[in-house]
């Protein structure tokens, strides 16, 4: 950063300050704690100065916004040009109810849709499957077939709105349903924009909504990347997700390391499938969590962009600058919300959202204050959206690009984050790559250890959670929560059974048989591509469960190693 002699002078001055000013102050008033750490338990020093950045090179570490290595942001003007997409996650009950919520959110100024599916849908079961009992429509919308998808987007112009769908194991099928709805609305393929989560590796690591063994699951993902690269150039076929990794208890560093390691697997596999890296890399997107520790989170986003740019350019030889860009959606940390004094969650969410914005996210979801208790009420969801709007339009932080750059603390944290990630990559490589590491339970164990350590720090009072282990109240005023209509399950099952009676059964059987042959075939990137067959099955109104069962029969199901 500075000339050597400047650094030496600062070091000398710092030593003087420590003796003359700091020491007597400490003697009089000791600090609040022996040691200070981030929310991820990384040590935090009292003071950061240019001496913490001895080799720091502006051009190499930061560069300029919109240019390699993108530490300062993916766009040259960032939020001066365009604000991030305010994308609130929504979905509950049946397609009819969620369609209503979607329209409400669009009227409130939301810019893109984000769909939450219920657990049977996430697990590839129809609503009348025995395992679905009690779960239908509970934490997302129930989708059994194209008919439900048609209802979900009725009256919403899919050529104008982009849609994100949070689904992984059955992502190919839900995406096919979405494409089929676009076909019916007359939207040409090249205009269809949005994201399907489709990150199966993080399911084995953290969220655990896996179905099949890892290898065929990754094939399914690669198949969608291939299809997207050929036919839907505006669609993000994978949103490589750290969110769930963090929610499962990972530190910020672990979240970053494991997410990028997962991303590298998709790149390697797509190259193996015969794609040029630049043909698909620009359509990979990311999804990160954003916790309470403002500067640590900002550093995470900045380090993420720099790391991915280096990985894509140096490891994979990508030449198109768009392939170097890490574009991300962020969501405030659900795991940080408390059931105690739930209104305090509004403030937590504000700090987290601010961190995501200072970190330079492209899209943001803010959690609602009641989410430690239930799905958000309309009022709580509106406050969460207003939080983003206030940051965007009133706080002033959007008026200049990467305003925290050059902070000795933030730049040091960013560097530490990057170094720590490279160290994790070495450990993962030693285990034989990320897929092997997951099979051995490595990331799972690291995360479980971090979760436990954090919980213990809270219980020792080392980490203070307002309203939980400090500033508690005996009697708390409850807040209203959303109740999911109990009859939604019955209505959905009736609707599904009516569909099974009405559709062309022979067409369904034929399409499923073609899919079965492709899944069992041994030319996965040639004649056995899955997406076109899935699309045929979906158009014939085969149900999600029927399609996923074809794969269950051919590939079997995954059993996870038990780790406590």
């Amino acid at each position, binding site marked *: 950063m500075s000339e050597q002699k400047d650094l030496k002078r600062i070091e000398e001055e710092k030593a003087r300050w420590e003796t003359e000013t700091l020491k007597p102050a400490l003697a009089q008033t000791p600090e609040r704690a022996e040691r200070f750490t981030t929310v991820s338990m990384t040590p935090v020093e009292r003071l950061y100065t240019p001496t913490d950045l001895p080799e720091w090179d502006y051009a190499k570490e930061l560069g300029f916004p919109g240019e390699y290595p993108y530490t300062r942001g993916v766009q040259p003007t960032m939020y001066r040009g365009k604000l991030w997409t305010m994308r609130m996650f929504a979905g509950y009950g049946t397609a009819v109810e969620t369609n209503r919520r979607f329209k409400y959110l669009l009227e409130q100024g939301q810019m893109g849709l984000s769909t939450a599916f219920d657990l049977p849908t996430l697990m590839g079961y129809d609503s009348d499957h025995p395992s679905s009992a009690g779960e239908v429509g509970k934490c997302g919308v129930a989708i059994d077939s194209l008919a439900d998808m048609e209802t979900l987007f009725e009256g919403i112009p899919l050529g104008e709105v982009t849609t994100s769908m949070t689904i992984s194991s059955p992502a190919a099928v839900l995406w096919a349903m979405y494409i089929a709805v676009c076909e019916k609305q007359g939207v040409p393929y090249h205009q269809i924009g949005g994201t399907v989560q489709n990150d199966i590796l993080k399911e084995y690591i953290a969220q655990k909504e896996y179905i099949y063994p890892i290898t065929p699951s990754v094939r399914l993902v690669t198949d969608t990347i291939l299809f997207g690269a050929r036919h839907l150039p505006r669609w993000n076929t994978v949103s490589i997700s750290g969110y769930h990794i963090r929610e499962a208890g990972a530190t910020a560093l672990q979240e970053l390391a494991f997410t990028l390691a997962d991303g590298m697997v998709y790149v390697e596999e797509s190259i193996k499938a015969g794609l040029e890296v630049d043909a698909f890399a620009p359509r990979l997107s990311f999804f990160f969590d954003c916790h309470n520790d403002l500067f640590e989170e900002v550093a995470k986003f900045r380090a993420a962009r720099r790391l991915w740019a280096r990985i894509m350019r140096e490891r994979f030889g990508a030449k198109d600058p768009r392939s170097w860009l890490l574009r991300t959606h962020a969501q405030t940390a659900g795991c940080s919300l408390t059931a105690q004094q739930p209104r305090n969650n509004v403030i937590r969410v504000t700090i987290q959202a601010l961190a995501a914005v200072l970190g330079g996210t492209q899209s943001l979801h803010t959690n609602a204050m009641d989410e430690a208790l239930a799905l958000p009420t309309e009022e709580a969801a509106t406050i969460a959206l207003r939080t983003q709007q206030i940051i965007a339009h009133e706080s002033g932080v959007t008026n200049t690009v990467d305003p925290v750059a050059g902070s000795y603390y933030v730049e040091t944290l960013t560097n530490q984050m990057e170094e720590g990630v490279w160290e994790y990559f070495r450990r993962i490589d030693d285990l034989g790559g990320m897929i092997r590491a997951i099979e051995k339970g490595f990331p799972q164990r690291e995360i479980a250890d971090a979760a436990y350590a954090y919980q213990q720090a*809270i219980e020792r009072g080392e980490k203070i959670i307002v309203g939980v282990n400090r500033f508690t109240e005996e009697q708390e005023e*409850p807040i209203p929560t959303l109740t999911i209509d109990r009859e939604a399950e019955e209505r959905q099952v009736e609707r599904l059974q009516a569909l099974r009676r009405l559709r062309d059964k022979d067409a369904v059987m034929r399409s499923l048989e073609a899919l079965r042959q492709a899944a069992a075939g041994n030319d996965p990137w040639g004649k056995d591509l899955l997406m076109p067959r899935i699309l045929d099955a979906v158009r014939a109104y085969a149900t999600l469960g029927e399609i996923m069962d074809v794969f269950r029969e051919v590939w079997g199901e995954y059993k996870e190693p038990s780790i406590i």
Partner: protein
Amino acid sequence: MAAKVEKKIRVLIAKPGLDGHDRGAKVIARAFRDAGMEVIYTGLRQTPEMIVSAAIQEDVDAIGMSCLSGAHMYLFPRVMELLKERGVDDILVFGGGTIPTDDIPKLKAAGLATIFTPGTTTTEAIEFVKHNIKNKDLINE
């Protein structure tokens, strides 16, 4: 000098239903183990039938269930029903997860001893189990 055999409290930690959010279940399982209990963790996606069978087979003193999907009003009472059908009345059953405040009295009426919501400490949970298990021989203080 008669050697006193100290029997440990046995707890089954279960994840009923389809959700895979097992952070809370794992943290509580580890904390119970560190507190000297014997812990059996079922792993994910257990039906109420599987949970009740495992609890009987393992002869546990307590069952702790974690659910974040909103299906607790179906899954938790179903476990209580099945325990009753099998004539089991000496197991302490408790739950945790994302549970709306309004549902807690209903779950207690269904026979659950308590519900831990996000923010509960492992110490509180350990103390609760130690003081409330039905086999009073195990309460040694």
